[in-house]
């Protein structure tokens, strides 16, 4: 009577989205976002402001992954800096090698290696990054691979919650310290900077900078669409289930470690892509973007905007980055207070972030209604 692959009965109202307003909410919102990012922003903003927006959008891309892993999966990913950095360095290494090749001198080393290096040949692990296809793939696949290996062990051993968060931080710290220590091959604290070209295009040219912006904006929209698909998929439901009761899911025959691993790896890939695009947009990648503090910074925006809400996390990330950049000049001290306060209020008293204000009210209404029914 019960077969595993049963036919599905047609469901007239699986979701309650029947009114036209709710039905077009998601695609409509997506289209609105696309128009704002791809149409209005480039027209309305100066080159400089657009470049700033490009940088904020990179944070937002990380926030998409944070929203998936933390908001949906309950994994407090306090080490996203690691993946952002891996993606960024993969891209930066390629750009440095391309710049060196552009000098026309055969076997030329990147400029910083000539200054601070041993003056010998390129380290072996730099070599593959000379290939643009390899470097591009590495920006996403390298962080994902690292996350996969790490997550495989960590989740299997059921390291979670606070332990996972502290472990992530320890790793972020370790990578940052290592990068700083390898000055001859990584640029040390300075990081990698001063890029001339981006896949053959001159980065100094404002037109090319705008192109970089478009690439970033489109990438963000694609990531959001992908994340949205994950959110509404069966996997998304399962992820919430794992977040709320990992043991229970285990008794249903799933391995929660794998469920979490997928979210963790996808989030890492998103951070990697963000890091890779950050490099041509901002022109630098350095250990300062990888350590403990920036890694916490990556979750601030998502926390303030609403970790479980995709749009909330993205807008939160952009808003916090904007506020940071605008307020810290005028009131460096006051901004620090405000930043701390934002965290306390958003996380402590409004865990769903600003995006949950409406939902909190709606949920209360449902509660009341079900109370009446019961």
């Amino acid at each position: 009577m019960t077969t595993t692959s049963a036919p599905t009965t047609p469901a007239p109202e699986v979701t309650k989205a029947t009114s036209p307003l709710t039905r077009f909410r998601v695609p409509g919102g997506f289209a609105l976002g696309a128009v704002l990012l791809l149409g209005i922003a480039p027209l309305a903003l100066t080159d400089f402001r657009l470049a700033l927006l490009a940088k904020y959008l990179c944070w937002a891309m990380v926030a998409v992954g944070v929203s998936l892993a933390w908001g949906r999966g309950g994994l407090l990913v306090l080490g996203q800096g690691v993946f952002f950095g891996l993606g960024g360095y993969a891209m930066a290494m390629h750009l440095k090698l391309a710049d060196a090749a552009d000098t026309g001198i055969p076997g030329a080393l990147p400029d910083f290696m000539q200054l601070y290096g041993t003056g010998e040949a390129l380290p072996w692990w730099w070599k593959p990054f000379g290939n643009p296809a390899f470097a591009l793939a590495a920006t996403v696949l390298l962080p994902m691979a690292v996350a996969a290996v790490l997550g495989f062990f960590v989740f299997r051993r059921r390291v979670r919650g606070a332990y996972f968060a502290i472990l992530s931080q320890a790793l972020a710290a370790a990578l940052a310290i290592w990068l700083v220590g390898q000055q001859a091959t990584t640029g040390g604290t300075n990081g990698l900077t001063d890029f001339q070209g981006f896949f053959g295009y001159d980065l100094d040219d404002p037109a090319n900078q705008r192109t970089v912006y478009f690439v970033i904006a489109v990438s963000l929209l694609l990531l959001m669409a992908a994340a949205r698909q994950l959110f509404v998929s069966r996997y998304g439901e399962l992820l919430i289930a794992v977040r709320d009761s990992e043991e229970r899911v285990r008794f249903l025959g799933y391995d929660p470690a794998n469920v979490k691993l997928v979210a963790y790896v996808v989030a890492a890939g998103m951070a990697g892509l963000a890091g890779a695009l950050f490099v041509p947009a901002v022109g630098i990648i350095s250990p300062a973007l990888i350590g403990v503090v920036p890694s916490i910074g990556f979750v601030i925006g998502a926390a303030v905007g609403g970790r479980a809400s995709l749009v909330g996390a993205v807008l939160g990330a952009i808003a916090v980055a904007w506020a940071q950049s605008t307020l810290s000049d005028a009131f460096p001290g006051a901004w620090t207070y405000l930043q701390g306060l934002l965290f306390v209020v958003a996380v402590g008293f409004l865990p769903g972030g600003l995006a949950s204000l409406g939902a909190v009210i709606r949920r209360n209404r449902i509660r009341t209604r079900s109370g009446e029914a019961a």
Partner: protein
Amino acid sequence: MSGEGLTIRGLRVSFDGYTAVDGVDLDVRPGDLRFLIGPNGAGKTTLVDAVTGLVKATGSVRFGTNGDGTELIGKPVHKIARLGIGRTFQTATVFEELTVLQNLDIAAGAGRGPLTMLRRRKGIPQPVAEALETTGLTALRDRPAGVLAHGQKQWLEIGMLLVQDVRLLLLDEPVAGMSHEERESTGELLRRVSEDSTRTVVVIEHDMDFMRSFARSVTVLHAGKVLSEGTVAQVQADPKVQEVYLGRARAEESADAAPAVPSPATGEATPTTTASAQEA
């Protein structure tokens, strides 16, 4: 003879020198509705924990529908679950933020491939629809599970086991804290569930009335060992059981509830452990 259903031999579970389950042998055949009773600390929950892989144990636990069955000791929780063994917890654990439908759909989907997982659910899968029907939760399917009443959560849990197509159901105090009406409904639900001759149901329960009304067979645990086993009547007549339940048992249960043994309501209070499956 030991190939069908749940077969436990010499099961032993220790925590830091304290032995919670101390050499239990237990056989439960398909189609049975076995109640596991015993005073606090008798090792009932620990036994279920051991069967489902939650705690480390020694001995042998086999489960299968034919042949020798599969050895469960040493397998991880999710692998055991995939063999068709499901359980509920004393406090109902459903996914509160997900709807009833989503809860059931997740329970139904442990074998789904990655492509199915990454797509949105369309419609209601047949087993889920059936489980909704069986548990009477159809009308509530779009409610978040968190807002359900206590009894409804327990039913949802049982429903989740049903859609998993579980062959062995282990229920830990399913009626604790329920109202009288809810108990009756739960009992009926359990009876319906166990009517499938291929299912084996084990219920841990403190509620003697409930046990008397619905159990097909009973095992009494005491201090980690099997104290007595048989029909409700056999067990209640066992002096060892009366000894253990002395005071409480004598004072309230043996005295005034004993006549209820041949339950008039169901007429099923005296099946033997080999109760036929044809009833279904």
